[in-house]
């Protein structure tokens, strides 16, 4: 229990995540991917006669069960399998973020940016609403996210997924190094 309650190192967590790929294949020929759930939610709730959302999402409902499982797993791990405490970050990351204006390092997200109170501030709106929009728009445009392209796609040796993953990283580097410092100052 002691070991489970501590944060898990990459060489435990990474291979376990990798095993999700064969688990889904063996349990029913399902390919690992999470961003598709966002499409199924659109198709189920607001199809609005858009051809991209006119398909039988019921056939893909396993994907929504998978996502619901992630929510439950997140709950279990946070409330029953964790010791509370700040994450052991690289001090250089902390120092540079502090310099750029981040104050609260206690949670999963910086509480001084991500909170319901900050939703109507320009900075909060950009980080939560614009950021979320870019995730949903970008993953569907790219045809997948970190799970579908980076893990499932590269694992099955598909070069378009490798290209897409490189683009994810380039987008992230550009944001972090060149744009984020300005957004943090908003």
């Amino acid at each position: 229990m002691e070991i489970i309650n501590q944060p898990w190192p990459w060489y435990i967590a990474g291979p376990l995540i990798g095993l999700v790929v064969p688990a889904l294949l063996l349990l029913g020929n399902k390919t690992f991917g999470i961003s598709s759930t966002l499409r199924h939610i659109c198709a189920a709730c607001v199809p609005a006669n858009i051809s991209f959302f006119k398909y039988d999402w019921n056939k893909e409902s396993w994907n929504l069960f998978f996502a619901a499982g992630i929510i439950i797993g997140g709950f279990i791990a946070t409330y029953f399998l964790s010791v509370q405490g700040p994450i052991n970050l690289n001090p250089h990351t902390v120092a540079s973020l502090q310099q750029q204006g981040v104050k609260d390092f206690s949670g999963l997200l910086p509480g001084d940016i991500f909170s319901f109170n900050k939703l109507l501030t320009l900075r909060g709106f950009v980080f939560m609403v614009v950021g979320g929009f870019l995730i949903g728009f970008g993953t569907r445009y790219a045809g997948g996210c970190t799970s579908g392209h980076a893990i499932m796609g590269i694992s099955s040796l598909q070069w378009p997924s490798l290209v897409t993953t490189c683009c994810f990283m380039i987008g992230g580097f550009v944001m972090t190094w060149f744009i984020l410092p300005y957004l943090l100052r908003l």
Partner: protein
Amino acid sequence: MNNIKFLIIGMLFGIILVKSEVISWFRIQEMFRLQSFHMYGVIGSAILVGMISILLIKRFQIGTIHRESIVIPDKKFHWGNVYGGLIFGLGWAITGACPGPLFAQIGGGTLVTLVTLFSAIAGTWIYGFLREKLPH
């Protein structure tokens, strides 16, 4: 009821996401600032294990539990991979999360992430709406 097994796999996946701290905004910042190996280790070793598993499945022609043969659909390249990939990358670095971690954060009680999730759903919808006009 057939779907309960996928709920359970999702649950285990969610637990791993929380326990390895990859759902932390700060860990994503460390990754993009090249100040920690953690995220690269997680994603890299996940790919390696996934790759070996798929090679074994193909080599020994292992079928599903329902005795069907395993088929992995080909991903065809289109320019959306590049444009969409870049756009998602920007969003990943702002929100510190990709879709899986969004769900795990919500389960862990970070309810403000619901805003990010709804916005991501809206983004997907707008993509569907504009799809025919976008270069692919």
